């Protein structure tokens, strides 16, 4: 028994999802916009990865690349995406459809627009069941009602017959979750699933996500700009800035010992729970400067212009991740941090 366990740990099973050197370029009005610049990520079976960063850092583009659901102006220029041994970038239309239908579920940010406004909620959910599980119309309807009940929609019989505008944002997001997990996918992509919701609803939706993840044992990638949400939900965290992953590691490590100056800045800008000791301390720390202009990035580290630790070598570094601790990687070769408060 013990030997077997050791063997699995020793051989380190292949991750469920592996992204290598992903580079995504958008055709913009004035030239090309490189939104993702060489991202490496992996997600193991059952693991939850948090993808953090400000708007425009490439989180959503990275996530959508996994199911190749990018706008027509975007091209995946380089890189490889391996899902359970399949090269996703080499899939034909049929393979891609079955990947999206069965293997990978997706929940989008805005539950107000992700449901078809002119179709009943139950019908939309049943349609997914019919297509992706091969059920008959009647079976699918019964399953849809079960699924609505399962994601915590009260009186599912009645709400299945409602149109999307008759449901609250939280309920619509629950329906989206029910649709995304209908085929029991092994990976769930959640693109800011709580951003459009109010705070109490947010907590309920996150609790639902935790429960579904546990029940189905599925791996999850959670994109958010909310560090609090990520801290609560994720096993590992990857921090993105200007299309690069600047730091990656176990969530606990990242929060306790952030190495990259950008991560440090992000963590310092979260309001604390403890009231400040003096009025002087009541100011929230901010990261100075402007978010980067993707069309005109400085050579080397894109964060250098805003970095408090900037030095001469910053223009020459190539942003590859370096080991800074057990499974903890950072793109900054200079700064290593002890604990931040």
């Amino acid at each position: 028994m013990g030997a077997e366990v050791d063997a699995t740990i020793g051989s380190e099973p292949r991750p469920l999802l592996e992204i290598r050197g992903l580079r995504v370029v958008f055709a913009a009005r004035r030239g090309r916009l490189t939104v993702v610049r060489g991202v490496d990520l992996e997600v193991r079976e059952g693991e939850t990865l948090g993808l953090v960063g400000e708007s425009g850092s490439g989180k959503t583009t990275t996530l959508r690349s996994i199911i190749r659901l990018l706008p027509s102006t975007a091209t995946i220029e380089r890189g490889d995406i391996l899902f359970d041994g399949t090269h996703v970038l080499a899939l034909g239309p049929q393979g891609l459809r079955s990947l999206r239908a069965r293997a990978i579920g997706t929940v989008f940010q805005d539950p107000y627009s992700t449901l078809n406004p002119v179709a009943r909620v139950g019908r939309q959910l049943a349609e997914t069941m019919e297509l992706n599980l091969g059920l008959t119309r009647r079976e699918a309807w019964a399953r849809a009602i079960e699924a609505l009940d399962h994601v915590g929609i009260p009186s599912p019989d009645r709400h299945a017959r409602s149109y999307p505008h008759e449901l609250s944002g939280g309920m619509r997001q629950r329906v989206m979750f029910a649709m995304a997990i209908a085929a029991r996918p092994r990976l769930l992509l959640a693109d800011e699933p709580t951003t459009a919701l109010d705070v109490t609803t947010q907590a309920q939706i996150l609790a639902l996500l935790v429960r579904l993840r546990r029940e189905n044992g599925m791996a999850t990638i959670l994109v958010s700009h909310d560090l609090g949400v990520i801290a609560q939900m994720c096993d590992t965290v990857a921090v993105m800035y200007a299309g690069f992953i600047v730091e990656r590691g176990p969530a606990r490590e990242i929060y306790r010992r952030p190495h990259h100056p950008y991560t440090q800045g992000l963590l310092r800008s979260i309001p604390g729970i403890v009231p400040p000791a003096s009025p002087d301390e009541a100011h929230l720390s901010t990261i100075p400067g402007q978010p980067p202009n993707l069309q005109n990035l400085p050579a080397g580290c894109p964060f250098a212009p805003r970095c408090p630790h900037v030095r001469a070598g910053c223009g020459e570094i190539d942003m590859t991740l370096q080991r800074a601790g057990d499974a903890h990687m950072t793109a900054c070769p200079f700064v290593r941090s002890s604990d931040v408060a």
Partner: protein
Amino acid sequence: MATDSVQLLPGDLQGARSVRSGLLSVGIGSFLLVVIAAAAFLAPVIAPYAPNKLDITHALASPSWAHLMGTDEVGRDVFSRVLYGVRLDLAVVLLVTYVPLPIGVLLGAIAGYFGGVTDMVISRAADVVIAFPFLVLVIAVVAITGPGLWGASIGIIVGGWAMYARLARSEMLVLRERQFMLATRALGYSHARAIVRHALPNLLRSSIVFSAVDVVINLLLLAGLSFLGLGVQPPTAELGAIVASGQPYLLTAWWIATLPGLVLVVLGVAVSMVGDAIGDRWGDVGS
């Protein structure tokens, strides 16, 4: 779950003023439309004479209780002919409006959804059709098929799909960016399903609103073609044809051309009043 069930229908929030002023024209419009359509539908029952029954002894009789709209040059009862004429016009107009509608909407949806070369082929075809003056296009088709009811109908259908295609395409361009269309792809649905099941129900509303205007245009077009002798052929009773046949007698027997023409105008106004109301109520929802 204290957050549930917000029940607010989009229509509830629209200005009460436009609703009230709309109500009057809907009332008048639908009243006229219902009366005319019912009379036309019941033509075989209520028409006092057969539409083509000749009665030379009473030719060119002016309107009277025996002949509400008088008689024409061969003694046919104009009122009876108008009833049958409206009946034919309404039936044909519905056909030539609602056959091209789904064709155009589907083509437009496909163009907007896929974009690229598909879009270019369909959009240019629509442009070509729209670039022709509609009447000229229809006359060209009639020249091929030969004058008559079918020729005119085919002509109107050939020209009619293009506006619906253009309308549906532009709406599809907006719809395509909506998240639920993205979601259909994330769920692995086929393009055909995404277009037919998820996009079309959202596109149809504006096309149906537009079709209310289209009905009026087609009504006048059909009557116009028949008036020119390209549409319905005499002796079949049709409003445009009746007006044409009364034209030589305009000074001596004004009723033959004038009264059917008046019916045509009233019918057109009634349809467009109802159409406007439909547009006010549903035209701007769905954004």
